[in-house]
């Protein structure tokens, strides 16, 4: 199948091959949209679709970061716990900081959140590269650390924004819209455009792919492998922080269940989107599509009366596997 010389028209075939692979997640999403409409016509209503797209924003933003980490051959399991930690620190800052005016306060809190996220990512990156430990183990460890720190800061309860006035100022960042497009969707688009630019149009992006394909070859080619890997973790940390900026105004609180299992959802979104778990291939727009697919599947399940509430997990799992099979069969044709 990969032996192009054996086929009659190698050029056309390889063009088709690449194109379909990138398009496959979007085909899967389209199929799901049709399926959802058949199950319940209210599904295709603009309000519902906007709700779903808005809800998928957290995972989509985090997954853009995860696309960098995974394309470079790494893995980050700590993103869910990191989200809760960054959210907790941000809210505690807003409750305590002696700043006048809501807007300067929000700006300072946002900067702090991005800083904390980047620092968390830097820690993951340095421990992985300098310490030469498997990223799976490193980020499993930091996952426990971030989660426990959050619970410690919350004294076991939740961390809520105290000032209702500040909350009212911040609320539009999740619930507001610009010309009918909810703000979180705009944030996803901006993050994805910047991510795509960095990954496809800069030398750093090409280094990420090179490191993920074969780090020995990359090293002999003069690419600073450890630095590239570390920076992907920092990008991941910043993406987590951006997701938190959109998450906090929704419920105004960080709780011990904040970000639970987000790491698995982010990794699933990345893989559905066509990025290879072994590294060397990265597809930003596929990742965003993957995050949408995950959220749409959950939405269809609630809107339909197909199965009892006990079986929803099984159907969700099956739909994800079928979506992947559809994608594989497309990319093989």
């Amino acid at each position: 199948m990969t032996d192009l010389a054996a086929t009659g028209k190698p050029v056309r075939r390889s063009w088709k091959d690449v194109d379909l692979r990138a398009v496959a997640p979007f085909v899967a999403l389209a199929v799901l949209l049709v399926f959802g409409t058949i199950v319940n016509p209210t599904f295709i209503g603009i309000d519902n679709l906007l709700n779903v797209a808005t809800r998928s924003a957290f995972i989509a933003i985090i997954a853009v970061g995860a696309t960098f980490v995974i394309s470079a051959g790494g893995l980050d399991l700590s993103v869910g716990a990191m989200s809760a930690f960054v959210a907790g620190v941000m809210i505690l800052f807003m409750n305590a900081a002696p700043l006048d005016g809501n807007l300067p306060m929000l700006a300072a809190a946002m900067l702090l959140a991005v800083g904390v996220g980047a620092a968390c990512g830097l820690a993951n990156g340095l421990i992985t590269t300098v310490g030469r430990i498997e990223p799976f183990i490193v980020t499993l460890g930091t996952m426990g650390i971030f989660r426990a720190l959050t619970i410690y800061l919350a004294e076991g309860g939740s961390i809520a924004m105290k000032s209702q006035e500040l909350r009212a100022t911040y609320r539009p960042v999740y619930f507001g819209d610009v010309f009918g497009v909810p703000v979180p969707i705009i944030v996803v688009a901006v993050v994805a455009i910047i991510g795509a630019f960095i990954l496809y149009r800069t030398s750093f992006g090409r280094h990420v792919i090179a490191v993920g394909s074969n780090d020995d070859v990359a090293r002999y080619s003069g690419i600073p492998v450890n630095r590239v890997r570390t920076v992907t973790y920092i990008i991941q940390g910043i993406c987590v922080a951006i997701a938190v900026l959109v998450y906090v105004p929704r419920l105004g609180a960080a709780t011990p269940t904040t970000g639970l299992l987000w790491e698995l959802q982010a990794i699933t979104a990345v893989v559905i989107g066509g990025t290879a778990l072994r590294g060397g291939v990265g597809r930003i727009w596929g990742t965003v599509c993957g995050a949408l697919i995950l959220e749409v599947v959950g939405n269809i399940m609630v809107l339909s009366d197909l199965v009892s509430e006990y079986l929803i997990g099984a159907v969700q799992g099956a739909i994800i596997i079928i979506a992947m099979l559809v994608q594989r069969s497309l990319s093989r044709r």
Partner: protein
Amino acid sequence: MKKTFAGLAFALASAASLGGAAYAQENKEVTIAVSIPAADHGWTGGVVYHAERAKAALEKAHPGLKIIVKTSPDGATQANALEDLTTQGVDALVTLPHNSDELTDPIRQVKDKGIFITVVDRALSDPSIQDLYVAGNNPELGRVAGEYMKEKLGTADVVVIRGLPIVIDEERQKGFDDAIAGSGIKVLDKQFGNWSRDDAFKVMQDFLTKYQKIDAVWCQDDDMAVGVLEAIQQAGRSDIKMVIGGAGMKDMIKKVQDGDPMMPVDVLYPPAMVATAMELTVANFYDQVPVRGRYILDATLVTKDNAAEFYFPDSPF
């Protein structure tokens, strides 16, 4: 009153705890170990808070009393903690076990040393081990919510957001279903919200899309009620008359107290039950009152009138 009976109580209590070493004094020395889960979500956070609070109050009331509170993040750690606590020589153990199956045998070993056992919330697989069992009432939590809706709304279309598929959730759901059976309350849909604010928000958003008219929401847990209220506010829907949660989170009790029309009542499943268990255990040693048996707390309906009684502004939950 506790002091008055302390002298009389000693003979009985010490027979059970000190193996019959009999000497009388006002400030009898008693050590009680409290083993509870670490604060991994709001409710267990409340348990830790109330255990510490009861410890301070009880130690002040009884100068000879020493209470050791130990939290454990999981069942295996808790089993180790139980061993450590018993080697320190305690007279009684108050424990909220992580899970019943895993911890029944470790607690049995503590019991075999002649220590008074109080179990909170989660019953052991072998109930003969516990001297005292203190728990909330899960079926009642569902029933009280169902009865309230039946009485206030008469006929209504209701959506239900459940917790996680475990026994506690099943019991609550069954209590609710039994209460509304044959009434005008119709359950449109049920989904799991995993006792999480974020998941409850998502499920409620989808319910609002799916059903054009919803009269009430039952979500059996105050954490989930936070997400539900936010989703309703975002959708700008005015058809929902009430949201009924449960447990007794301070923010929700405050809403009830302030007369929030969306949250007229709350149903209690209080983390403070650990304090009840500690009080009763201490009473066994200092007061001449029989405490052995099962002590099941009501799922009290919290209304505007009695809300102040259940409001703990300093609690994390």
